[in-house]
């Protein structure tokens, strides 16, 4: 008996609608975060992440309203983020119903934010999101939605983040994101073996075997994906059944 490996669908929103991983021609209800949240909760997702990828100031109230509506659908943990720069931003998101908050760019610019958040909400509520891009033999930390390069090395930034009080690392491979070639096993293993907090692998998932790989070889504690779930290319229940048949510990919904 041990901790189950978590499967986490991610809703990238513009504050209001899901904007990534949907077939824009046949939009259906797949763009509605509330409907997706309801479906994932019922299908046995272990957690849900909702991000505001636009993260513009004036759309903030809309995003908070989205969090409230999504939280009302869930009997599983909810993580929310995108554009959290201050303690007040985080408070608003938690008050709206998020159990955890993710920080990314703002934490790179001001690492003390991580400690402030973990003192206020506890480290179990603070997720450090890192967008990593391969740079020769290591990985470089990118910010601002992957558009801005930093001098930070991903492994050392993850270690520092955990030291400052982050309770989890959400690690996205910029090289794999959107490629459907599978998670970045070497990146994830490098971080997961080095930091003493759980690591969520993200970017590149397509087949059930990719999830098995990232849990076994990548030592990931959780795996996140978006479009394959939104577009119903991969069901969560059947994914978990596959993982269980590979002797990977997962929570099978009843």
């Amino acid at each position, binding site marked *: 008996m*041990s901790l189950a490996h978590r499967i986490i669908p991610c809703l990238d929103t513009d504050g209001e609608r899901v904007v990534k991983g949907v077939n824009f021609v046949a939009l259906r209800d797949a763009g509605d975060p509330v409907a997706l949240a309801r479906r994932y909760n019922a299908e046995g997702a272990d957690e849900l992440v909702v991000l505001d990828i636009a993260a513009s100031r004036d759309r903030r109230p809309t995003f908070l309203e989205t969090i409230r509506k999504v939280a009302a659908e869930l009997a599983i943990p909810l993580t929310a983020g995108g554009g959290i720069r201050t303690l007040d931003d985080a408070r608003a998101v938690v008050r709206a119903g998020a*159990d955890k908050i993710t920080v990314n760019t703002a934490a790179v610019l001001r690492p003390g934010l991580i400690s402030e958040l973990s*003192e206020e909400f506890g480290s179990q509520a603070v997720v450090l999101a890192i967008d990593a891009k391969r740079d020769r033999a290591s990985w470089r930390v990118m910010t601002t939605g992957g558009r801005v390069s930093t001098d930070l090395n991903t492994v050392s930034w993850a270690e520092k983040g955990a030291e400052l009080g982050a309770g989890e690392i959400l690690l996205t491979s910029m090289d794999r994101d959107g490629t459907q070639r599978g998670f970045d096993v070497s990146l994830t293993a490098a971080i997961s073996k080095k930091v003493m907090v759980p690591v969520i692998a993200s970017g590149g998932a397509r087949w059930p075997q990719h999830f098995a790989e990232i849990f076994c070889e990548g030592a990931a*504690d*959780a795996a996140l994906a978006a479009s394959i779930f939104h577009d119903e290319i991969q069901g969560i229940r059947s994914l978990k059944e596959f993982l269980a048949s590979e002797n990977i510990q997962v929570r099978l919904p009843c």
Partner: protein
Amino acid sequence: MKISLLDYGAGNLPSVERALQRLGGQTERISTSAGVAKAAVLILPGVGHYGALIRALDRDGLRDSLIAAIERGVPFLGICLGLQALFEKSEEAPDLQGLQILPGSVRVLSGAVKLPHMGWDQLQSKTESRLLEGIDSEAYFYFAHSYAVPYSCEERAPETRATCSYGGEFVAVGEKENIFAVQFHPEKSGDAGQRVLENFLRIAV
């Protein structure tokens, strides 16, 4: 009968409230000792830092009324930190005193494990539990904590109904007369968690 949720700023209060309302429970938030004194059913939610909970209880003068209510036999459910608060003290805030209703103390989870203990884990049943009635023994519950009450030989208490093992075996479900406590988050534990809350409501309301 109304279920009184102790509101001292805990992050998980709204989701506990929502989960209870989904089950048809009537809830109210209370934050004064007068509120505690009048409560018919009490829930102490909690997530985050032990010190923050204990300080809030003392700041708002809730400690004595809470102990009195529990001693009077008011059905009580402690969730996560709400479980930890029932014990004597915690390594997370060594200068503070817990409610000291149950013997034992809260320690950091140790061993070669990642902290926090975050995610879905299974329980080991120790003895019959009213909270876990009708729930599959293989069911998973959602945990998010770095501290817990160790289930050790010296401190093995009859109130421990189920444990969980992560960096050592710790108390996951405790029950003693009108006192109920869980280290996991039933409000975040899907159908199994809902069932735990349902069982509590059936006992209490």
